[in-house]
């Protein structure tokens, strides 16, 4: 009996440890290690590279160059075009997605027969990987084979087939529409969850008080969805700024630089020109812009106060 008490019991030791304050750190350790390895280290390394020359095509140039890449960026016209395009692309896409998402969520919230099937169908675009969605739309909008051109010509909107991604004016708009199609279910899903949490009584009270649909949207729906909208917008903006894949497939940044955005520019600089130093500098600038955006947006929408 006494011998068994002195034996090493791993589970008992663990149990005793779980009563101490070190337990919390122990539980956090695995995810902390993972974050350090997979996120913190690459991020910091990327930042370090932005101050170095690192061209795989010219290995001899390796070395610290200070702010050279940032200075080059300042006078790089493509950077400014990409920055402008990023702002236009992300803003337009998010606004469209938010509007479409709100519309969809409101419709689905009605609980009419058949809405369950619609809820699943409407989510389909979001389930498609960017790459698949991109190729699908590239085909749909193809200047010679595209179904969209065919339909528009038959309906009489267009005289002849249009090369959507070849026209600098149409290209950015077309990619925005494709992105809106792909991304709106994300908003629909989150906003639907938000709508479900608004008490029905509020709308009844508004009806008795004489508030119409527009007033109900302004006074009840939007304020009650504020937190959800803010979170969804931040998540979507971050994901859009950082994902070059859709544009890479649809336009590759062209024609010219008409659809060039920062993420795509950084990707091409790194993996086509193998200029990792400059690509890293571009990424750091994106990182800073996103940080500023997120902080400003959270402040503006005051979601942390409630």
């Amino acid at each position, binding site marked *: 009996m006494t011998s068994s008490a002195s034996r090493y019991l791993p589970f008992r030791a663990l149990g005793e440890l779980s009563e101490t304050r070190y337990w919390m750190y122990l539980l956090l350790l695995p995810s902390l290690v993972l974050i350090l390895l997979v996120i913190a280290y690459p991020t910091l390394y990327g930042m370090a590279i932005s101050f170095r020359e690192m061209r795989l095509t010219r290995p001899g140039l390796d070395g610290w160059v200070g702010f050279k890449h940032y200075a080059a960026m300042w006078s790089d016209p493509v950077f400014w075009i990409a920055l402008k395009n990023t702002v236009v692309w992300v803003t337009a896409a998010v606004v469209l997605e938010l509007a479409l998402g709100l519309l969809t969520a409101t419709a689905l919230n009605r609980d009419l027969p058949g809405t369950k099937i619609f809820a699943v169908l409407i989510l389909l675009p979001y389930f498609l990987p960017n790459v698949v969605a991109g190729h699908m739309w590239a085909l749909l909008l193809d200047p010679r084979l595209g179904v969209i051109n065919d339909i528009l010509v038959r309906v009489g909107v267009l005289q002849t087939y249009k090369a959507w991604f070849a026209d600098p004016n149409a290209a950015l708009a077309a990619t925005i529409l494709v992105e809106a199609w792909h991304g709106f279910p994300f908003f629909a899903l989150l906003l639907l969850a938000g709508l479900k949490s608004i008490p029905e*009584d509020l709308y009844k*009270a508004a009806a008795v008080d004489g508030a119409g649909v527009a007033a109900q949207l302004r006074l009840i729906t939007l304020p009650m969805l504020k937190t959800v909208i803010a979170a969804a917008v931040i998540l979507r903006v971050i994901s859009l700024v950082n994902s070059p894949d859709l544009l890479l497939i649809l336009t590759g940044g062209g024609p010219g630089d008409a659809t060039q955005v920062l993420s795509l520019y950084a990707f091409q600089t790194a993996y086509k020109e193998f200029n990792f130093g400059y690509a890293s500098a571009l990424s750091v600038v994106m990182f800073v812009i996103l940080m500023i955006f997120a902080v400003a947006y959270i402040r503006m929408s005051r979601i942390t106060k409630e």
Partner: protein
Amino acid sequence: MATLSIKDVRKAYGSVQVLHGVDIELEDGGFLVLLGPSGCGKSTLLNMIAGLDDTSGGDILIGGRSVVDLAPKDRNIAMVFQSYALYPTMSVARNIGFGLERRGVDADKRKRAVEDAARLLQISHLLDRRPANLSGGQRQRVAMGRAIVRDPELFLFDEPLSNLDAKLRVEMRTEIKRLHERLGTSIVYVTHDQIEAMTLGTKVAVMKGGYIQQLADPRTIYERPANMFVASFIGSPAMNFLPGRLVRNADCVRFEASGVSMAMLASNPAEVSERPVVLGIRPEELKVAARDQASVTGMIDVVEPTGPETMVTVQVGERSVTARVPPRFAGQRNEAIFLTVDPVSINLFDPDTEQRIDI
């Protein structure tokens, strides 16, 4: 102030009938309580009066004017909701004045009306706050302020006290009664709480399964329930039911069951037929008596003193009945107990239809 007439109002969702031809008349300045378990149709009926739900048939008149084709805002009603339904982004003052604001009442007049309502409800000091910064009781008062500021013809209350804790509920109940007496506006009030129904209503409609079981003043509902459902739904502890038989010898009608034998009051004993019945006795009508006066004899099962009174559960034959006796009751478990009942206070029900029988 107005009368309310509900005439053969029906409601169906597809093939599911949730209200079957409801008829109610409420006098000017009356207080109608719609009482029933959840799913009985009481909230649907209230929503139909408000115009938040369509009627599938019948007519609703407020102050003699048919309102079934009017939007909620045009019915001259005000409503207080269970969840209070205060607009979270607006101050208390704007919440209260919002109905007036939507109706184009000018700012000065609105401000005065809001201040008057706030004073009446003792929430003047809260006018600048947001609903999120109020306690449950305060929100309840704001919700009531929003209703009274409009000075409507009819107030509609949808379980307004269910979200409050027990103590506050009693306070607000008194407050609502005081408001009603002060303003004199007709009220329709939905609740599943029989105490609220008894204390507030001038008229109570007990509902179940989409039918009105009984529509009467609270006293009648309590003393002369129309059927066994109403009898058991109202009163706590619930009415005791004892199945037995009516027997007649000479000009005397008696109720007989195992452990029970008592004379009945009949308006015309000669015409009473012998038959099985259910005897309903309120717990407070069972009084401890001497053995030779007893009409109910049983064994004490449980004695529960509550302070002001004591509940005694008595085994009578196969049945268990509850008697509400004075606090210093000295009986013990497994002792015999002898009880009398005033025959005026009893109710008889048909065991098959569960409807009340008058003899």
